[in-house]
């Protein structure tokens, strides 16, 4: 949290959010204007280490080593010094110029921790600036120190010395490595080789395989001496050094009474009370997001209806005018009235929950349940949000750590029945077939999520990861940062998704205007009529459902010429259930597809889309046959 607050202080409104090239990791970039200088600031992913466990770690490390930034500002949480210094040490080993922003000094103070910054500066050999980002304290000093560090240079950071057995072998190996042409410092590369870092091994192995085998031999020697793998020994020693520095620079006074945040933590992770609290929070979040979204959505809808009649008065209802309105403008309206009213409160709430620390407590409580579908606790939030709208749910999958988990969570989330799907389930099956059948559909959907989640979990390559996360202390989120984060993410979504939504609606409208809908429905009839046992006309409604799922129901009423579906011949209970089942599973709506493309890229978005269409048709056909057997 501290990092994004500082980033926002540095760059203000001069920000640009995108993705790292070819990755699903967010990249924020901004400009700092300071005393006539224009400084490019990049927000590197928040990480704990520079190994290659996650894609974020790799990105940060490659950026620092290869792009050679003038300076790295290392935002350190003063209230958890030891863990954070472990990372600082790794940055120092990369031999990049750094300035440490010793942040959250206020929280440290509240926890009874006093830190001697001067001493820390001496020990590390890098500038240390105490800051309280949320109240802007120390930010000016941080800017000044950083500029000075770049322009006047900083002294060399203290060299981190490991135990004798390790140190001797690092020296030996770095002599070998220094002969190779590498973008990394030799000592750092030598350490990484000893840690059996896959990426560095691969890179050096291409240049000189002998160095890699020499490194393996040296690592084995260390392993024999210490009885643990070499990477364990190095990590362990590095943590010892971090711990030693932390003990030297900080004084901890015991707290006399249990602070409020600790009591709140105890309550929100309590084995019994934690759950009702969680349910209450989630319900109020849901209520807030959807009452705001629904209200705004309808309000905007009414506004646009009026605009529509004005438009028709001006341009008439000719083919071109209809195409422009129905295709382009209505796509825009769909985006504005569906996505935005839900996305704005969603982002606000998500960042609020995340920054305050409550999100990690929910993950703690729900970890076990999410394991059943191959995910861990953190995925619970996006999955829950999916019941409202799949778009924010897809975007919310960002909070997962590895690329594998992110894909898995996204896949699962697109299967969750969103509010529009619920409209179909309740409006069609719930009203005309019976409430118990609607309930059954929900149960079936959850079962499908469970089964597909498990299969994807087994099939996807890569190591599954369990939950391991820091539960930082509760704190008040920084409102300005939350607002800024919301604003920039929203802007990015609009730029990315709207062209897709508009293009989608234009194509469908074009097909409509050209009179191709019925021929297409005929083409689809082997699927709709023969396999699914539905009236041919439903093919058209399912196409429109791609725009917004509730349109399938609205179009059905239009095409049948009545909203009383019970009176339609050839559309009995079986057809209603099959139709709803297909509509529930068959495709993420165009807004969700846009979110998928943004988060996962074209290939995976296409994969999920195609898979879900095929799967829905498959399940629908099976259901039709089963239902016919029961003689409904």
């Amino acid at each position: 949290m501290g990092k994004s607050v500082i980033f926002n202080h540095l760059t203000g409104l001069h920000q640009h959010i995108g993705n790292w090239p070819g990755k699903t990791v967010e990249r924020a970039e901004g400009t700092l204007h300071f005393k006539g200088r224009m400084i490019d600031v990049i927000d590197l992913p928040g990480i704990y280490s520079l190994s290659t466990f996650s894609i974020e770690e790799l990105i940060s490390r490659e950026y620092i080593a290869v792009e050679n930034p003038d300076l790295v500002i290392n935002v350190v949480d003063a209230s958890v010094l030891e863990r954070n210094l472990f990372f600082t040490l790794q940055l120092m080993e990369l031999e990049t110029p750094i300035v440490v922003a010793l942040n959250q000094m206020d929280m440290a103070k509240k926890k009874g921790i006093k830190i001697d910054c001067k001493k820390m500066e001496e020990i590390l050999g890098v500038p240390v600036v105490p800051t309280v980002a949320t109240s802007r304290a120390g930010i000016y000093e941080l800017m000044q120190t950083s500029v000075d560090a770049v322009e006047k240079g900083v002294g060399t950071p203290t060299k981190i010395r490991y135990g004798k057995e390790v140190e001797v072998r690092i020296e030996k190996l770095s002599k070998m490595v220094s002969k190779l042409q590498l973008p990394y410092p030799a000592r750092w590369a030598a350490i990484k080789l000893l840690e059996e870092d896959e990426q560095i091994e691969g890179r050096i192995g291409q240049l000189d395989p002998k160095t890699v085998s020499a490194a393996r031999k040296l690592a084995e020697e260390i392993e024999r001496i210490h009885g643990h793998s070499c990477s364990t020994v190095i990590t362990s020693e590095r943590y010892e050094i971090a711990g030693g520095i932390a003990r030297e620079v900080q004084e901890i006074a015991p707290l006399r009474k249990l602070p409020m945040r600790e009591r709140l933590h105890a309550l929100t992770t309590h084995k019994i009370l934690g759950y009702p609290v969680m349910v209450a929070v989630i319900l109020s979040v849901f209520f807030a997001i959807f009452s705001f979204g629904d209200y705004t959505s309808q309000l905007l809808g009414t506004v646009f209806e009026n605009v529509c009649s004005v438009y028709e008065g001006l341009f008439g209802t000719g083919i071109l005018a209809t195409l422009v309105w129905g295709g382009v403008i209505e796509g825009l309206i769909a985006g504005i009235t569906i996505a935005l009213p839900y996305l704005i409160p969603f982002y606000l709430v998500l960042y609020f929950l995340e920054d305050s620390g409550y999100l990690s407590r929910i993950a703690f409580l729900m970890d076990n349940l999410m394991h059943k579908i191959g995910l861990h606790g953190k995925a619970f939030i996006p999955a829950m949000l999916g019941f409202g709208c799949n778009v924010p749910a897809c975007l919310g999958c960002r909070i997962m750590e590895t690329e594998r988990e992110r894909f898995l969570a996204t896949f699962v989330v697109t299967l969750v029945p969103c509010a529009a799907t619920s409209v179909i389930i309740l409006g069609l099956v719930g009203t005309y077939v019976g409430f118990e059948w609607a309930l059954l559909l929900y149960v079936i959907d959850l079962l499908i999520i469970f089964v597909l989640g498990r299969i994807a979990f087994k099939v996807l390559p890569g190591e599954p990861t369990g939950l391991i996360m820091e539960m930082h202390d509760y704190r008040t989120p920084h409102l300005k940062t939350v607002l800024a984060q919301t604003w920039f993410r929203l802007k990015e979504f609009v730029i990315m998704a709207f062209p897709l939504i508009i293009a989608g609606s234009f194509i469908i409208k074009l097909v409509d205007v050209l009179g191709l809908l019925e021929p297409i429905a005929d083409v689809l009839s082997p699927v709709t009529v023969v396999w699914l046992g539905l009236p041919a006309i439903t093919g058209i409604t399912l196409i429109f459902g791609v725009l917004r799922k509730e349109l399938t129901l609205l179009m059905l009423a239009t095409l049948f010429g009545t909203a009383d579906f019970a009176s339609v011949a050839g559309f009995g209970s079986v057809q209603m259930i099959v139709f709803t089942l297909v509509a529930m599973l068959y495709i993420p709506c165009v807004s969700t597809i846009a979110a998928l493309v943004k988060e996962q890229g074209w290939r995976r978005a296409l994969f999920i889309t195609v898979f879900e269409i095929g799967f829905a048709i498959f399940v629908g056909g099976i259901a039709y046959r089963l239902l016919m057997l029961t003689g409904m």
Partner: protein
Amino acid sequence: MEKKLSELKPGERGVIVSIQALTRSHGHHRRRGWGFRRRLEDMGLTPGTRVMIVKSAPFHGPIEIHVRGSRLAIGRGMAERILVSVEN
């Protein structure tokens, strides 16, 4: 006395002895379980580290521990692979 971290009761302390690699195979690689151990170690759970169990979530959920001045949540499956010697 050595126990799995997951077997410790709330309030109990221990020192980490070792982290067992994953036994379930994910590719026949000599690095099997490498990332898993690396991850725990990067988060500060190295051999010799003192830990205290604060609580465990119900229904076989994750456990909360204090380690290196911070608070971590660890999934049950991961905690089962961490061997600690219990302090009295």
